[in-house]
């Protein structure tokens, strides 16, 4: 096919019909929910997160009503505890993080000129997990069992089952489930950005939104897993009595605080950076010029990401850590101001240098920057240790964090809502209502939160159900309460505006005259994502590449057809976006939803101590996951496919070039991070005890851990040899080696558990045996998964779905085992050798 073939109108129509058929969404009352296309899943995701936000907002209104006057008794203290815990948890876990993922699922493929993200079914799985987990956690308040320990769930009150009820389990297990879906989304977004850019979109041409999302997704990989590790320890203590955080048995509640805030502080930037990313898209549009300082923005994003991991202890300034430790974290907290400032100056400079159109989204953007800067300045104040000691746990901190979050997340998202609504629905929202809402919310936010600085400095502590009139802060609280209702009224105007949208007429295509790829979307929604995958030469192709829209629409770029009726998109190289392969994407399926519900069962049944049901759910999850996996890495009917302009691309790739390999690599990075959280626990206990392991503990000994290590190493070598044999097309040795490797992985399980078991370590007695057992169980569980992977590869080989040429399965399994062997070396050397040298 040459460029001129596309002059044929009949051909173009035929192509469009084929594309339309391939991307036809499932219809029907139930079947429609099996859809996996990003434009559907992303919208469900966004609406659900928006709904959860409104719910959490109502909780805040009830709290403010309670606090309006001194000595009020509108709600009981127990209910109040549930209200603030659920408000914070929901805003963080059910709104801010999922919202950025949801928006990215909608926008990224459009921004990258891809037809969909690399793993559409994974997005759907993430959505269903999110919905189930969110309803489970939020619903608990209607049964008066909502979590009530604050959004950070500090032990020991929360780990002692006589002092806290089911709520703590609901928080831990419900939100762990949602964290799994967040990590899944991170995998999806990273692979999408690195491997699914259009040809020509080298790293230096990537839309800044993509840069930010790449950085944030990588942050999720390092921030969420420590919390997952913490959740695991926390539930082991609650359900089994393993005393990780119980000081009377050698535990330490501070360990939880470390693990929580290693997650919790980067989390702040995880939800802030995507909002700045929205600005980085809309500010150039309304300034009608390129964004100034592109590399400076990249500096800001990457720099903030790194520095944000050096801030966690600034939430723990009042815990009595050595001053020198506090000083390190104070220094990093000051340093993070530099990249944060740089990106704000880059945006301001762009506005100053452009011909600004002061649209509604722009109003929200500038207004939220003003609010954010106030929060940023109080942030610098609390980053200074002596000031923090005064302000810690007072309403000053409440004021600070709400300024940051409203200015840095909520209002920017509404800017994004007004900006991108035409992209999703084809219709503009009302400028009049939007501006009215903005001014109401802007006034409301300041009226609510500014007085809190003073009530805090005057001594009002956080999380109190009421206060006495003698403190003299009644009027400040009344102002805050009035402000919160004003803010809610503004939000209501936004909701009304959204509800009126279906009655409005369609807007023109690219109504803001933007320059980036996502605005190629047509007002009358086509499901194929993009008509043809363009060749990118500049950062703002719609502005700078002549006839760009027409060429895309007429299919004059790549992959304008779906000859085989399959959903396809182009995968490219990481640095230079050279075309690598045509990737076939998963279509509508029940599997993601079933997997999410089965996995949800594991978490929900465990909450209610229904362990057999949880186990059954676990097996169901495994079965559905394997069924799902079986559909992946399919062998194509032909090796190569033409994509236009004389280019032919393979339909199958494996190893480091393939999206699947990257997904495994990224998932295992997250897994290794969670593991390092547990290892941190072991060495943390070593630092707090004069003698660790305690002298009375004579396990797990040296022998069994070393045997377990040797077996794991042997299994790893066998897996590598199997990969080599497979490459040489020697099927029988491959299968024998895979079988042997699988058996070795199975053997590693009893060998690993034998050490703590035979030496009689009682995990409920002390933190040492508890952490030893945890590390051992973590590692043998990975051996178990490793065995399943090896047997899976064996089955694929036997079924003819894995051959010398089509070897994605064994390469991914080998990659898993590289990480497996790392885990085994660290665990078994720590458990076996460290007691010898300590």
């Amino acid at each position, binding site marked *: 096919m040459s460029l001129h073939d596309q002059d044929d109108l009949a051909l173009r129509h035929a192509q469009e019909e084929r594309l339309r058929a391939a991307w036809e969404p499932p219809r029907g009352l139930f079947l429609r929910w099996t859809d996996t296309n990003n434009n559907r899943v992303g919208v469900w995701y966004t609406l659900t997160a928006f709904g959860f936000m409104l719910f959490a907002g109502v909780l805040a209104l009830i709290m403010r009503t309670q606090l309006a006057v001194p000595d009020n008794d509108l709600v009981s203290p127990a209910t109040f505890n549930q209200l603030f815990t659920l408000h914070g948890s929901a805003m963080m876990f059910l709104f801010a993080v999922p919202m950025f993922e949801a928006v990215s699922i909608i926008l990224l493929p459009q921004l990258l000129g891809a037809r969909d993200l690399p793993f559409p079914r994974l997005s759907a799985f993430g959505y269903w997990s999110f919905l189930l987990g969110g309803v489970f956690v939020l619903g608990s308040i209607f049964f008066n069992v909502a979590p009530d320990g604050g959004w950070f769930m500090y032990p020991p009150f929360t780990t002692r089952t006589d002092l806290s009820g089911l709520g703590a389990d609901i928080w831990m297990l419900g939100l762990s489930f949602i964290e799994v879906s967040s990590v899944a989304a991170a995998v999806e977004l990273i692979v999408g950005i690195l491997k699914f850019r259009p040809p020509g979109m080298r*790293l230096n041409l990537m839309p800044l939104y993509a840069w930010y999302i790449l950085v944030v997704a990588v942050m999720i990989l390092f921030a969420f897993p420590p919390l997952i590790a913490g959740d695991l320890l926390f539930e082991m203590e609650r359900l089994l009595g393993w005393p990780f955080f119980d000081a009377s048995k050698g535990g330490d509640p501070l360990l939880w605080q470390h693990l929580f805030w290693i997650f919790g502080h980067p989390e702040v930037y995880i939800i802030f950076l995507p909002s700045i990313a929205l600005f980085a898209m809309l500010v150039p549009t309304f300034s009608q010029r390129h964004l100034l300082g*592109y590399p400076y923005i990249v*500096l800001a994003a990457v720099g903030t990401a790194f520095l944000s991991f050096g801030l966690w202890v600034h939430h723990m300034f009042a815990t009595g850590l050595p001053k020198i430790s506090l000083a*390190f974290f104070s220094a990093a907290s000051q340093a993070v101001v530099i990249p944060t400032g740089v990106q704000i100056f880059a945006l301001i400079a762009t506005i100053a240098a452009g011909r600004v159109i002061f649209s509604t989204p722009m109003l929200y953007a500038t207004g939220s920057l003003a609010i954010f800067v106030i929060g940023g300045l109080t942030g610098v104040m609390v980053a200074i240790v002596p000031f923090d000691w005064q302000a810690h746990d007072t309403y000053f901190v409440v004021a600070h964090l709400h300024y940051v979050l409203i200015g840095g997340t909520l209002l920017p998202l509404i800017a994004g809502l007004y900006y991108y609504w035409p992209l999703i629905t084809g219709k503009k929202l009302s400028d009049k209502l939007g501006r009215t809402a903005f001014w109401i919310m802007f006034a409301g936010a300041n009226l609510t939160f500014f007085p809190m600085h003073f009530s805090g400095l005057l001594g009002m502590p956080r999380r109190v159900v009421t206060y006495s009139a003698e403190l003299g802060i009644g009027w400040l609280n009344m102002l805050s309460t009035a402000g919160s209702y004003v803010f809610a009224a503004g939000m209501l105007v936004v909701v009304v505006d959204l509800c009126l949208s279906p009655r409005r007429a369609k807007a023109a295509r690219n109504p803001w005259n933007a320059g980036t790829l996502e605005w190629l979307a047509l007002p009358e929604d086509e499901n194929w994502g993009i008509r043809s995958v363009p060749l990118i030469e500049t950062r703002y192709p719609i502005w700078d590449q002549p006839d760009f829209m027409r060429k895309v629409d007429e299919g004059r770029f790549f992959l304008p057809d779906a000859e085989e009726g399959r959903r396809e998109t182009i995968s490219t190289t990481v640095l*230079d976006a050279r075309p690598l392969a045509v990737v076939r994407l998963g279509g509508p399926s029940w599997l993601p939803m079933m997997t999410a519900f089965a996995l949800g069962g594991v978490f929900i049944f465990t909450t209610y101590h229904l362990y057999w049901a949880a186990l059954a759910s676990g097996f169901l999850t495994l079965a559905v996951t394997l069924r799902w996996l079986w559909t992946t890495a399919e062998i194509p009917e032909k090796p190569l496919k033409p994509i236009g302009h004389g280019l032919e691309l393979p339909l199958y790739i494996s190893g480091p070039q393939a999206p699947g390999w990257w997904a495994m690599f990224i998932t295992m990075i997250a897994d290794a991070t969670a593991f390092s959280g547990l290892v941190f626990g072991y060495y943390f206990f070593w630092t707090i005890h004069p003698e660790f392991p305690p002298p009375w503990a004579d396990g797990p000994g040296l022998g069994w851990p070393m045997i377990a290590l040797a077996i794991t190493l042997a299994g790893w070598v066998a897996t590598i040899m199997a990969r080599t044999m497979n490459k040489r097309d020697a099927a029988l040795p491959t299968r024998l080696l895979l079988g042997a490797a699988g058996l070795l992985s199975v053997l590693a399980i009893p060998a690993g558990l034998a050490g703590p078991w035979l030496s009689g370590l009682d995990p409920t007695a002390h933190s040492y045996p508890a952490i030893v057992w945890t590390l051992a169980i973590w590692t043998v569980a990975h051996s178990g998964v490793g065995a399943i992977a090896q047997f899976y590869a064996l089955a694929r080989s036997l079924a003819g779905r894995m051959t010398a040429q089509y070897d994605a399965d064994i390469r991914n399994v080998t990659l898993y085992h590289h990480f497996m062997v790392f885990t085994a070396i660290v665990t078994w050397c720590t458990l076996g050798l460290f007691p010898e040298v300590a």
Partner: protein
Amino acid sequence: MIRKLHSHIGSLQATLWTLIVAPTTWAVHFLFSYLWAAVYCAKTGQFAEEPLVYWVGTGLALLVIAISGYIAVIQSRVPGDPAPHEHSTESDRLRFIAYSTMLLAGLSFIGVIFTAAPVLILEDCR
């Protein structure tokens, strides 16, 4: 000789991995600082009286960052396509990654100095 070195540096690959050398060095230095203080204070009640090791480590970290920045400065000036260097070409991509690397090296350099500064002033574990 300098010119030869520069032309060699100009031909080196710049990737997402080289981009993060400097901030990773900051992170390692930061983690080392934190662990060093935490372990010493917990185990001995004081941190090392002669923190020479610490200053050597800090110097090394600064050196790595400086080298990363130096390479980046040279790479960001590799001659090639005309300004504004925002096109889909090999040299524009190289210049962009190099420039960003240089900026990150600057930030990381400041970051390491920030981290190390308290050790000059604070002397015990109180």
